[in-house]
C-alpha cells in the first residue's frame, strides 16, 4: 500500500512538475525570509542577515534539487528521461525498430494466445462451486476399458453404501423432439437423478429441482430447463413454471429454470454430442433386467476431508463387494474415480503443455534475434556511449539507459503481440478440437494480460542485458580515438557472443522442427488409414422418431422404409441406406454380449461382446463397405423379421477362429426376449470412434429384428452432398410434417472432425516451427551480413591477390554453415531428449524417427545456406580497390 501511495504521489508530482517546483521554491523562499527575520531580530544588519541566512542553507540549488527528487524526480524522472531518449533512438532507426518489434510481437503474440487457452482450460477454476471436490465415477470393464458407463444397480449400490461422498448423481444424455413451439426441433435432454443440481452446486433460479415422487418410474413428467432454452423457447418468461412442453409427443411440465452459465456435458459418455438444454428425472428401476444396462454417468462430490485416494480406496471395496454379490454380472469389473478437471481436459492437457513449451522456445529465439540485432548496433553506438561515459555517466547509469530502450522495444512488441494474439485466438477457437468447446469464452482477460506484461518485461531484460553490458565494457580511450571502430578484442568478443546466439537459435529451431516434422508425418499416416468405408460424396442426417407418436415398431420401420424409398427417388441421389449409430458421429454406440448356439455358455466375466448395429442393405452399398463372404441383407429382411445377421471380420476372428461363421446361429443379448439369428455374411471392418483404434467385433441386424427409433440416413449423391440437404429434408417433411431431422453433415466432414485434434496440434506446432525457422534464418542473415562487413578488407585483399568469386562465396558460406551445423548438432541432441514428450500424440511413427530427423536437419541447413547466400554474394562482389581504400 505504502509503495503505491508514494509512487502515485511522485507520478502526480511529475505530471505537475512546474507547479510542484514552484511550491518548493516558495516554501524555501519563505523559510529563508524567516531566517533573515530572525537574524535581524538578533541584531544583524539586514544585508548581513540575508547573507548569513543563505549560508545556513548551504547550496540553495542543490537543496531544491534534492527536495524535487523526493517529490517527483529521482528514479522515476530518470526513467521517463530514459524512455523519451529511448523513443528518440528507436524512431531514428525505423528499420531496426520495425524488425525487432515485429520479431518480439510474433513471439509474445503466440505465447499470449496459447497461454490464454492454457489458462482457460487448465488454470481457471471450473464453473462449479467447489469444483475441486467433484469427481466422476466409472466402471472398468474386465477387458480393461476405462471410464465405462455404470449400471443402475451398481450406481444404487454405490450411492447407498459409500461414505466418501457428500452427494452422488447419475445422468444420461438423450435427444428428444420438441414440438408445439414453432418449428419442430431436436433438443438435447439429460435424464438425471434429483441430486444432480445439488452435487454440482447449482440451484434453479425459478421453481425447483425434482421431487422424490418424480424420481419414481412412471412418475409425473416434468422438466427443468436451462437458461438458454428458457430465453429462446419460453421468451424468458418468469411465469414459465407450469408451462407444458411437448417432448417426443408427450406433455412435460416445466418445474424449474436453471441459472445462466450452467452447463454440464461429459463428452466421454454422451450419445447426444451436444450439451443438454433441458433436464428430466432419471427414474431408477430397482429390479429386473433394466437395472443391468450399463449406460449411466455418475458424478459425485467428495465430503470435506476425504481425499481422492481415500475415495478411490473405498470404491475399490465397492467393486469387490459387487463382484461377490452378483457374479455373473459384475465378474471382473472394477471402478475408478476421476477428478472432474481430468475428465474434462485430461485428454488435451499434454498437447497444450507441449504447445506452450513450443511457443516458449519461439519466444526464446525471438529474444536471441533481437539480442543479436542490438549487439550488431553496439559497434555503431560505441562513440555515443563513450561520449556519455566521458562526461561522467556511470556504467550502471548507461546500462539502465540501454535496458530502458530494450524494455521499450519489448513493450511495443507486446502491444503488437496482443493484437496478433487476439487474431490468433479467434483462429485457434475456429480450428480447435471438439474437446475444447469450453473455449467459447476464451479471450484476453486480466490474468493473461498480466502474464503478457511480465513476459514482455522478462524478455526485455533477457535480450537487452547482454548487449547493454557489452556496450559498456568499452575502453573509453580506444573508442574515442579510433572514431567508432571497435578494437580487435572488443569486436571478437561481440562476434563470439553473436555466433553463440545464432547457434542457439538454430538449435532451438531444430527442436521445434523435429517435433513438427514428427506430428506432420504422424498426421499423414493417420490420413492414410482406411476407415473401412468411402466417405466422399455422402450426406448424413438423423431422424429421431418420438415414442409418443410412433408407439409400435411397425410404425417406425414403415417411416424409415418410406424415407429411404423417397430419398432414393430424388434426382441426384445415387443410393441411400441407414444405420442406428453412424461411424465417427462423435458419441457412443451400443455393445453387448453374444452367445453362439451350440456352445457351452462361458463363465461370468468371460462373455464375448460385440458392437451392435442396425442397418439395411443400402447402408453397405452407400458407404462401400465390402461383403467378404456369404450374402448381404435384401429388401425382404427390411419388411419382415427373418432373424438374419451380418458380422464383420473382427467378429469372425474373435468368435469363430478357424471356423466358417456363415450359417451359425448367434444370440445377441439386447433385451430379455432377444432371439438368436443366423449369420448370413461377413462384411469388412469399419472404424467407429477413432482412426487409431482397431475396429471392434460388430454384428449387424436389420431394423425389424431390432428396432431403434433414431436412425441415420447415409445418402450418396451425384453432386456436392451438402447441396442435397434441403431437398432431402423436404422429402422427409412430406412423410411427417412434424418430424425434424438433425445432424445434417457430410461423411467427409465427420471423418475430418475425427482427426481435428491431431490437425490442431500439427497445424500449430508446424506454424510455430515455421516461425522459429524464419527467425533463425533472419538471425543467420544478420550475423553473416555484419561478418561480411567486418571482413571487407580481408576479402578485398584476397580478391586483389587473385581469389575467384566462387572462392570468396565459398569462404563466407563455409563460415555460415559452420555455425549452422553446430546449431544442428546441438538441436538434434535436444530433439532426441525432448521429442519423447510427443510420444503420446504420435501415430505410426516413433518419437525419434531417423528419417524425420534427417529431413529436418537437411531442411534447416538448406534454409540457413539460403540465408548465408545473400551476404556471401555481396562479399563475392567486393571491389578490391574500394575495399582496400576503405580506411
Amino acid at each position, binding site marked *: 500500500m505504502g509503495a503505491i501511495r508514494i509512487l502515485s504521489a511522485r507520478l502526480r508530482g511529475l505530471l505537475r512538475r512546474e507547479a510542484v517546483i514552484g*511550491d518548493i521554491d516558495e*516554501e524555501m523562499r*519563505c*523559510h529563508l525570509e*524567516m531566517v533573515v527575520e530572525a537574524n535581524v531580530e538578533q541584531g544583524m544588519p539586514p544585508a548581513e542577515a540575508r547573507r548569513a541566512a543563505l549560508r545556513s542553507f548551504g547550496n540553495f540549488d542543490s*537543496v531544491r534539487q*534534492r527536495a524535487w527528487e*523526493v517529490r517527483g524526480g529521482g528514479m522515476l524522472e530518470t526513467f521517463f528521461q530514459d524512455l523519451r531518449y529511448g523513443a528518440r533512438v528507436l524512431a531514428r532507426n525505423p528499420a531496426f525498430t520495425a524488425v525487432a518489434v515485429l520479431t518480439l510481437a510474433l513471439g509474445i503474440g503466440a505465447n499470449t494466445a496459447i497461454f490464454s487457452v492454457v489458462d482457460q482450460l487448465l488454470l481457471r477454476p471450473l464453473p462449479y462451486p467447489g469444483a475441486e471436490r467433484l469427481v466422476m465415477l466409472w466402471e472398468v470393464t474386465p477387458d480393461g476399458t476405462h471410464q465405462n458407463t455404470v449400471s443402475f444397480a451398481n450406481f444404487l449400490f454405490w450411492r447407498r453404501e459409500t461414505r466418501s461422498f457428500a452427494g452422488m448423481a447419475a445422468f444420461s444424455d438423450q435427444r428428444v423432439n420438441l414440438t408445439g413451439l414453432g418449428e419442430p426441433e431436436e433438443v438435447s435432454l439429460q435424464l438425471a437423478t434429483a441430486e444432480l443440481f445439488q452435487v454440482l452446486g447449482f440451484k434453479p433460479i425459478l421453481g425447483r429441482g425434482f421431487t422424490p415422487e418424480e424420481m419414481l418410474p412412471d412418475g409425473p413428467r416434468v422438466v427443468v430447463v436451462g437458461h438458454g432454452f428458457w430465453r429462446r423457447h419460453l421468451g424468458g418468461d418468469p411465469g414459465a413454471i407450469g408451462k407444458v412442453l411437448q417432448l417426443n409427443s408427450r406433455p412435460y411440465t416445466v418445474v424449474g429454470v436453471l441459472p445462466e452459465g450452467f452447463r454440464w456435458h461429459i463428452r466421454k459418455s454422451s450419445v447426444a454430442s451436444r450439451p443438454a438444454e433441458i433436464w428430466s428425472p432419471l427414474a431408477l428401476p430397482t429390479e429386473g433386467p433394466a437395472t443391468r444396462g450399463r449406460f449411466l454417468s455418475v458424478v459425485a462430490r467428495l465430503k470435506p476431508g476425504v481425499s481422492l485416494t481415500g475415495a478411490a480406496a473405498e470404491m475399490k471395496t465397492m467393486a469387490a463387494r459387487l463382484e461377490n454379490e452378483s457374479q455373473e454380472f459384475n465378474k471382473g469389473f472394477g471402478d475408478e474415480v476421476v477428478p472432474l478437471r481430468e475428465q474434462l481436459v485430461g485428454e488435451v492437457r499434454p498437447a497444450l503443455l507441449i504447445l506452450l513449451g513450443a511457443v516458449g522456445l519461439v519466444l526464446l529465439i525471438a529474444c536471441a534475434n533481437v539480442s543479436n540485432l542490438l549487439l550488431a548496433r553496439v559497434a555503431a553506438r560505441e562513440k555515443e556511449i563513450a561520449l556519455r561515459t566521458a562526461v561522467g555517466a556511470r556504467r550502471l547509469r548507461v546500462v539502465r539507459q540501454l535496458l530502458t530502450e530494450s524494455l521499450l522495444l519489448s513493450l511495443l512488441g507486446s502491444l503488437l503481440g496482443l493484437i496478433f494474439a487476439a487474431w490468433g485466438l479467434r483462429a485457434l477457437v475456429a480450428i480447435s478440437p471438439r474437446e475444447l468447446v469450453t473455449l467459447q469464452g476464451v479471450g484476453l482477460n486480466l490474468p493473461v494480460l498480466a502474464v503478457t506484461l511480465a513476459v514482455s518485461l522478462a524478455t526485455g531484460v533477457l535480450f537487452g542485458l547482454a548487449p547493454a553490458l557489452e556496450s559498456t565494457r568499452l575502453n573509453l580511450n580506444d573508442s574515442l580515438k579510433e572514431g567508432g571502430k571497435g578494437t580487435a578484442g572488443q569486436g571478437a568478443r561481440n562476434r563470439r557472443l553473436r555466433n553463440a546466439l545464432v547457434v542457439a537459435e538454430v538449435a532451438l529451431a531444430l527442436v521445434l522442427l523435429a517435433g513438427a516434422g514428427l506430428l506432420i508425418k504422424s498426421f499423414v499416416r493417420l490420413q492414410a488409414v482406411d476407415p473401412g468405408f468411402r466417405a466422399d460424396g455422402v450426406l448424413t442426417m438423423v431422424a429421431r422418431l418420438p415414442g409418443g407418436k410412433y408407439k409400435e415398431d411397425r410404425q417406425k420401420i414403415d417411416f424409415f422404409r418410406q424415407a429411404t424409398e423417397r430419398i432414393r427417388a430424388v434426382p441426384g441421389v445415387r443410393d441411400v441406406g441407414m444405420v442406428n449409430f453412424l461411424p465417427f458421429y462423435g458419441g457412443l454406440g451400443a455393445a453387448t454380449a453374444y452367445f453362439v448356439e451350440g456352445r457351452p455358455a462361458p463363465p461370468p466375466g468371460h462373455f464375448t461382446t460385440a458392437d451392435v448395429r442396425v442397418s439395411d442393405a443400402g447402408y453397405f452399398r452407400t458407404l462401400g463397405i465390402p461383403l467378404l463372404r456369404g450374402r448381404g441383407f435384401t429388401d425382404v429382411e427390411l419388411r419382415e423379421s427373418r432373424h438374419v445377421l451380418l458380422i464383420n471380420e473382427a467378429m469372425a476372428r474373435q468368435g469363430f477362429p478357424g471356423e466358417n461363421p456363415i450359417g451359425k446361429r448367434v444370440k445377441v443379448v439386447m433385451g430379455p426376449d432377444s432371439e438368436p439369428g443366423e449369420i448370413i455374411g461377413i462384411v469388412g471392418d469399419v472404424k467407429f470412434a477413432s482412426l487409431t483404434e482397431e475396429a471392434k467385433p460388430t454384428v449387424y441386424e436389420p431394423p425389424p429384428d431390432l428396432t431403434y427409433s433414431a436412425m441415420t440416413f447415409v445418402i450418396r449423391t451425384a453432386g456436392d452432398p451438402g447441396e442435397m440437404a434441403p431437398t432431402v429434408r423436404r422429402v422427409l417433411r412430406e412423410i411427417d410434417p412434424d418430424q425434424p431431422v438433425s445432424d445434417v453433415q457430410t461423411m467427409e466432414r465427420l471423418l475430418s472432425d475425427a482427426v481435428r485434434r491431431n490437425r490442431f496440434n500439427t497445424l500449430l506446432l508446424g506454424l510455430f516451427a515455421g516461425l522459429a525457422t524464419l527467425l533463425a534464418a533472419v538471425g543467420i542473415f544478420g550475423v553473416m551480413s555484419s561478418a561480411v562487413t567486418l571482413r571487407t578488407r580481408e576479402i578485398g585483399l584476397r580478391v586483389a591477390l587473385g581469389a575467384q568469386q566462387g572462392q570468396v562465396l565459398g569462404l563466407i558460406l563455409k563460415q555460415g554453415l559452420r555455425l549452422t551445423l553446430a546449431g544442428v548438432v546441438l538441436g538434434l541432441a535436444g530433439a532426441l531428449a525432448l521429442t519423447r514428450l510427443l510420444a503420446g500424440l504420435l501415430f505410426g511413427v516413433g518419437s525419434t524417427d531417423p528419417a524425420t530427423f534427417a529431413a529436418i536437419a537437411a531442411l534447416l541447413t538448406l534454409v540457413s545456406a539460403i540465408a548465408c547466400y545473400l551476404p556471401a554474394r555481396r562479399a563475392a562482389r567486393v571491389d578490391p580497390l574500394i575495399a582496400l581504400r576503405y580506411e
Partner: protein
Amino acid sequence: MKLSKPKADLLQGTLDMLILKAVSLGALHGYGIIQRIRQMSDEMLDVEQGSLYPALYRIEQRGWVSSEWGQNETGRRAKFYTLTKAGRAHLEAEEASWDRLVLAVAKVRQAT
C-alpha cells in the same frame, strides 16, 4: 544529475521521528520544525534545511503528515505541517522501538 546523499541519511529514521515529534504538539512550518527540534534538544540538535525538506516531503508522501499553506505569527505566508493519525501511530511505534534500542545499548555499555 544525481547529488551526494544528505549526511543525515545515516539517521534517516531518527530524523523522521524528530520531525514527527516536533509537529505532534501542533502544526508547524519548516523553519518552526528546526526551531522546535533545537529547543527540545536544548540546542544540541541542529537540523539543516538541506536535510529537513527531503525528509519532510518523504514523510508527507507516506501520509504521516499533511500540509497546508497558511500565515505565520508575523503574517508571512508559510506551509504548515500537521501530524496525521497514521503519523501518530508511526511516531508511537518509533518511540517505543527507540526506547528499546536505547535500553539495549545502555545494557551493553554497562556490561563490563
